[in-house]
């Protein structure tokens, strides 16, 4: 062929022409050399080849008898985690994974407080369509509560297709299982996940948020609640008001109760103004739907309670502990996209201020553009 007229200069390297020497007459030597290579492979193939630096030896893994070695980062299908001791699921149905999932296979509904009908930071129904999930691992990356992780189980073939729409019961795995299959990855996120879990557990009434299959834990929780109810009943017998703890029945606050509550809050605020420099106006949340507190039937009861709570908030704000009790969970399920990976552990004082600012900004933004992905 004519010399190629395309002289392209190559920085830091040479252009090497492949030597073909196809004009040399080969006396069948090439065939024998090829056979020699195959003979060496045949001879060597009677021992196993499991290392990276061997190019001879049988490298087949006889699958059912000999399980393949799975690295820690291996990801097949997502699973939900629940804490072994308390039995509480880590998931607080924040819908992040449902939003990020490219094939949109995750579907979930938020749990409701049976008494007041308020949303609770726990998940009621969680479905993953295993047949459409492509195990890309985005949900595990995006979950702020490390509730959803990628499993190492790959023997998922089944003949009945309906079982591939996996419900929460089949998805749940204990944290010990995940710690066993991905030790270093779990170690990194362990303490933050567990701390967030305690925060959420405290705000989960009744038996919501317990892994459904842990029947004995649920029974124990119910027994404990019943005991509280009985004990509160005697307290109630002593005091005319209905038992504060047991959430009797959920109904809206009547206007005057609301006013009383407002007064109580304002009183607490003035009490608080004295100790902390910046007035923690975040505490008296605007009377939008009250955080998941219980509704006291009588007016003074609510006021006293609100006062106690405000005091607690102030005490905690002062003590520098993360405002775990502050209603971090967004007001309601769907709206609001709290920054996905902004870690909550900022210094408490200006933390509350910034939170309020963000909430205001969100509210403003929500009115103008209805965009939500």
């Amino acid at each position, binding site marked *: 062929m004519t010399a190629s007229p*395309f002289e392209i200069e190559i920085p830091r*390297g040479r*252009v090497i022409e492949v030597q073909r020497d196809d004009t040399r007459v080969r006396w069948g030597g090439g065939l024998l050399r090829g056979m020699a290579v195959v003979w060496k492979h045949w001879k060597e193939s009677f021992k196993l080849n499991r290392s*990276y630096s061997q190019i001879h030896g049988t*490298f087949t893994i006889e699958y059912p008898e000999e399980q393949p070695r799975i690295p820690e980062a291996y990801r097949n299908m997502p699973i939900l985690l629940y804490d072994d001791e308390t039995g509480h699921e880590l998931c607080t149905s924040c819908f992040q994974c449902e939003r990020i999932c490219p094939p949109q296979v995750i579907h979930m509904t938020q749990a409701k407080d049976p008494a007041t009908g308020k949303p609770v930071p726990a998940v009621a129904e969680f479905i993953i369509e295993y047949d459409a999930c492509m195990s*890309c691992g985005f949900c595990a990356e995006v979950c702020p509560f490390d509730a959803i992780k990628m499993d190492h189980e790959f023997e998922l073939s089944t003949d009945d297709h309906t079982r591939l729409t996996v419900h929460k019961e089949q998805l749940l795995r204990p944290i010990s299982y995940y710690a066993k299959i991905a030790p270093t990855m779990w170690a990194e996120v362990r303490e933050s996940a567990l701390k967030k879990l305690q925060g959420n557990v405290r705000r989960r009434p009744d038996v919501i948020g317990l892994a459904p299959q842990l029947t004995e834990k649920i029974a124990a929780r119910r027994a404990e609640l019943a005991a509280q109810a009985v004990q509160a009943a005697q307290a109630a017998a002593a005091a005319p008001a209905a038992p504060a703890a047991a959430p009797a029945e959920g109904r809206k606050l009547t206007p005057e109760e609301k006013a009383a509550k407002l007064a109580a809050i304002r009183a607490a605020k003035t009490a608080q103004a004295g100790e902390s420099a910046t007035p923690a106006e975040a505490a008296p949340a605007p009377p939008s739907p009250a955080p998941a507190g219980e509704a006291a039937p009588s007016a003074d009861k609510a006021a006293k309670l609100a006062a106690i709570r405000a005091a607690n908030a102030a005490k905690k704000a002062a003590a520098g502990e993360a405002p775990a009790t502050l209603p971090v969970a967004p007001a309601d399920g769907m709206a609001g996209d709290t920054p996905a990976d902004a870690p909550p552990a900022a210094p408490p004082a200006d933390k509350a201020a910034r939170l309020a600012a963000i909430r205001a900004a969100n509210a403003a933004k929500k009115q103008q553009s209805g965009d939500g992905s």
Partner: protein
Amino acid sequence: MLQTQELQVNIGPQHPSTHGVFRMLVTVDGETVVDLKPVFGYLHRNHEQIAEANSYLQNMPYTDRLDYFNSMANNHAYAMAVERLAGIEVPERAEYIRVLMVELTRILNHASAVGFMINDMGAWQTPLAFGMREREKILDLFEMASGARLMCNYFRFGGVVRDLPPEFIPNLRELLRALPAYIDELERLLRDNEILLQRAIGIGILPPEVALSYGVSGPVLRGSGIPYDVRKAEPYSVYDRFDFDVPIGKVGDVYDRFLVRIEEMRQSKRIIEQVLEQLPDAKGGHINPKARQNVRPPVGDAYARIESPKGELGFYLVSDGSTKPYRYKVRAPSFINLTPLADMCRGYKVADIVVILGSIDIVMGEVDR
């Protein structure tokens, strides 16, 4: 006397040796090919339309499915395109890890491409079995780092999803120790094989000027004697810090492309060794912490191209300011390398068509998108 009229032969789409679902309508006069009309689209999955409905990050796992042999290369091209669009820098260590992964996938792709081509010539899977063994080792490394063997989804905007696990580097060094022996053995098995010479020399010749006019790239272009390599022509990422050679062929036939691929495997090994020497330590950060994954790039467009094992793979993204790309175009090397197939096969025997197709080394996922 014995007048053989031209008859139409249909090779594919479920033919054993077309790589994926690809049909060729061949008009044959006796034994020689008169004309060939490629028919594809059997694997069209509406990739670019889906991409417009997904956010930038949600598209990343879909790019694995383009050229399902080199998911790392596809990720790299897409990540570079979005970073160029949104103006995200990538830390040093992430760049090195990216180059390491793409060069590993180049070795794996060439090992199996050579295996498939010889398999089409009729050798019963022996070179392919050797190629697959090396491919398995590299896939294990990918699985260790990214979590999956084929659909790695390892790149993120501004770096990679996770740093290399501790046992990655030692295993990689062990693999590099065995690689030259494997490449030499593959060459000893096939290079002087008289039967292979008869089936490969002078078959499917693509002259340089025709190659340029068709816009082919990668080993097919270099096989025709044009030393054009995107890593050298427009050094992206940290490729300007490594020295490696660009192998080119003389005639541009099947034998040249086969030798070019084998030589490129050696060059990739050289690059990986240099990467391992210059790899910055872990505190360099495997990802740019300030890079937001649900990126919302400013209005505008960007085009990023890399030297994927099959040729010049490019991603062209147009952003309208929202979280979803307005236009998402993939410049697939296999699709463009396939266009000169009719000219390359004309005049050769019917049995050569499959060998020429194997020497171009296409993957239908990338051609049909």
